[in-house]
């Protein structure tokens, strides 16, 4: 009895906690890192008062947010107003179930993993749209409308670029996708090379999908204050914040998995030395590589934010529908040709 209880209930819960708790900590540190990086780019200090080098700033902010009152606007839809932050957070966390961190380091190694990811990321828009509607505020509704239209548009470009990966891999399983990028030509075996335009489109769509600068018209401060979460305060706002940053980190991890070989080493196949385990991950690959890649991608989010002015709304729509989607559709065809003529080889067998 206890055995079953352990393997079917307690162990999965522990696995889930082992992903979610570091994720929340990562979000906190990511916020700190963002403020620090943008500070440096603006020739400022960034947060530097709380804790060593200001590292505890994010935790201080979280404590502050949690002890603030959650204000309910008059004439707002109370149930939906409280439901919306959760609807934003749950898909952002649930998507992590299929993310493989390393060989066999995955919570759910499902065959329809990519589909599951698409399903979860498409659910996140409900939190935004409901937050905007339930707030009973014009700014919030405008932000929600912009955001929802943008997320739906860029989901298509994102989905089509993932289709290119699927064409080359022939599997919807994320672990298989990483395995297919193994080889002995180092980082030239990864999909970024044959799918270069699609790789760039995927990441830019990811930035747009998470409503980050320069695509952050959903919360354009100068126009609609803070967009869909303008009425939210305290812990409810913190949950939106958490969801946004968790999905940013998710997009970074997925870009690394789909196009940058996941946990594979960029030196794969070039070094075949025997070394102790703590050192040979450098060429045989390990979860540390995935984290390094994801860190670099998440750094790009911050770099974009500090570098680019905000896109205008109609330009965002044009970019998504008239530029990205046609390119990805063409590249699906190109990927099919590459697969058919065997220009791209899959796995270590090459």
């Amino acid at each position: 009895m206890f055995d079953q209880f352990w393997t079917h209930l307690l162990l999965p819960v522990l696995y889930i906690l082992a992903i979610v708790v570091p994720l929340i900590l990562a979000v906190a540190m990511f916020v700190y890192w963002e403020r620090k990086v943008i500070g440096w780019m603006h020739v400022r200090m960034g947060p530097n008062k709380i804790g060593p080098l200001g590292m505890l700033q994010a935790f201080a902010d979280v404590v502050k947010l949690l002890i603030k009152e959650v204000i309910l606007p008059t004439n707002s839809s109370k149930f939906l107003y409280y439901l919306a932050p959760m609807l934003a957070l749950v898909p952002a966390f649930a998507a992590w179930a299929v993310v493989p961190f390393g060989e066999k380091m995955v919570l759910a190694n499902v065959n329809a993993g990519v589909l599951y990811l698409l399903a979860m990321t498409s659910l996140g828009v409900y939190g935004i749209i409901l937050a905007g509607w339930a707030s009973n505020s014009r700014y919030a509704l405008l932000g929600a409308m912009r955001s929802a239209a943008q997320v739906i548009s860029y989901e298509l470009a994102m989905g089509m670029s993932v289709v290119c990966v699927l064409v080359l891999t022939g599997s919807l399983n994320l672990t298989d996708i990483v395995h297919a990028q193994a080889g002995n030509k180092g980082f030239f075996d990864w999909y970024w090379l044959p799918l270069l335009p699609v790789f760039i489109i995927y990441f830019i769509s990811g930035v747009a999908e998470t409503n980050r600068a320069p695509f952050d018209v959903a919360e354009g401060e100068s126009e609609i204050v803070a967009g869909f979460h303008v009425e939210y305060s305290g812990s409810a706002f913190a949950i939106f914040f958490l969801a946004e940053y968790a999905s940013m980190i998710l997009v970074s991890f997925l870009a690394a998995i789909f196009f940058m070989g996941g946990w594979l080493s960029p030196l794969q196949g070039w070094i075949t030395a025997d070394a102790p385990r703590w050192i040979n991950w450098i060429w045989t690959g390990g979860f540390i590589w995935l984290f390094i890649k994801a860190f670099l991608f998440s750094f790009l989010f911050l770099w974009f934010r500090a570098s680019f002015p905000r896109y205008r709304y109609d330009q965002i729509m044009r970019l998504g529908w008239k530029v990205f989607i046609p390119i990805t559709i063409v590249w699906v065809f190109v990927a099919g040709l590459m697969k058919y003529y065997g220009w791209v080889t899959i796995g270590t067998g090459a």
Partner: protein
Amino acid sequence: MNPQLIQLIMFYAFGAVAVGAALAVITLRNSVHAVLSLVLTFFSVACIWLLAEAEFLAIALIVVYVGAVMVLFLFVVMMLDIKMEQVREGFARYLPVGIIVALVMLAEMIGMIGVRAMGLHVMGEDPAAAAGLSNTAWLGHALYTQFLLPFEIAAIILTVGIVAAVALTLRHRGGVRHQSAAEQVAVDPRTRMRIVKMASETMPTETVPPVAPSQETSP
């Protein structure tokens, strides 16, 4: 607690949620709440399909209906601000038609359950299990080999539908000034701006003596 029992309990739980949410769709006064109940219905049905190991259909239902179609529904409902009282006025008028539709559906369902209860496999064995593939993989194989022509025809019909919808709604009104993002992006700086090259001016060799404070003060 054998897995089958858990599966049965989960089936009834999801089924109860689906039926409850479906009832809420037609009883709730607030149309946004009704749309959200419809979302919940789709979600519960997707869970039931997952239990039936039709994971591709289940996830496709969530991606297509919950993720895209219902969001647009929500858009429309939020924008239109429908007064439900007016919609409800025709209830008595449409009731006979509704009852007929409900009766036909009931008869069909009973017929289907009856066929299943007699142990007849109308659709045959589960082909995915027979081929030893996962549901998704088998669907892919079947769609792109056995059913390629119908699949392509469906794609063409959908494309025609999209083109028709765009053609019906796309209106070019004359005399309207609007921005063209394509033109704006294609702007060449050379047509907008002239860079003048000129020799740098040198400072006068004699340094200007500092202005005396007496001149600075105004009278």
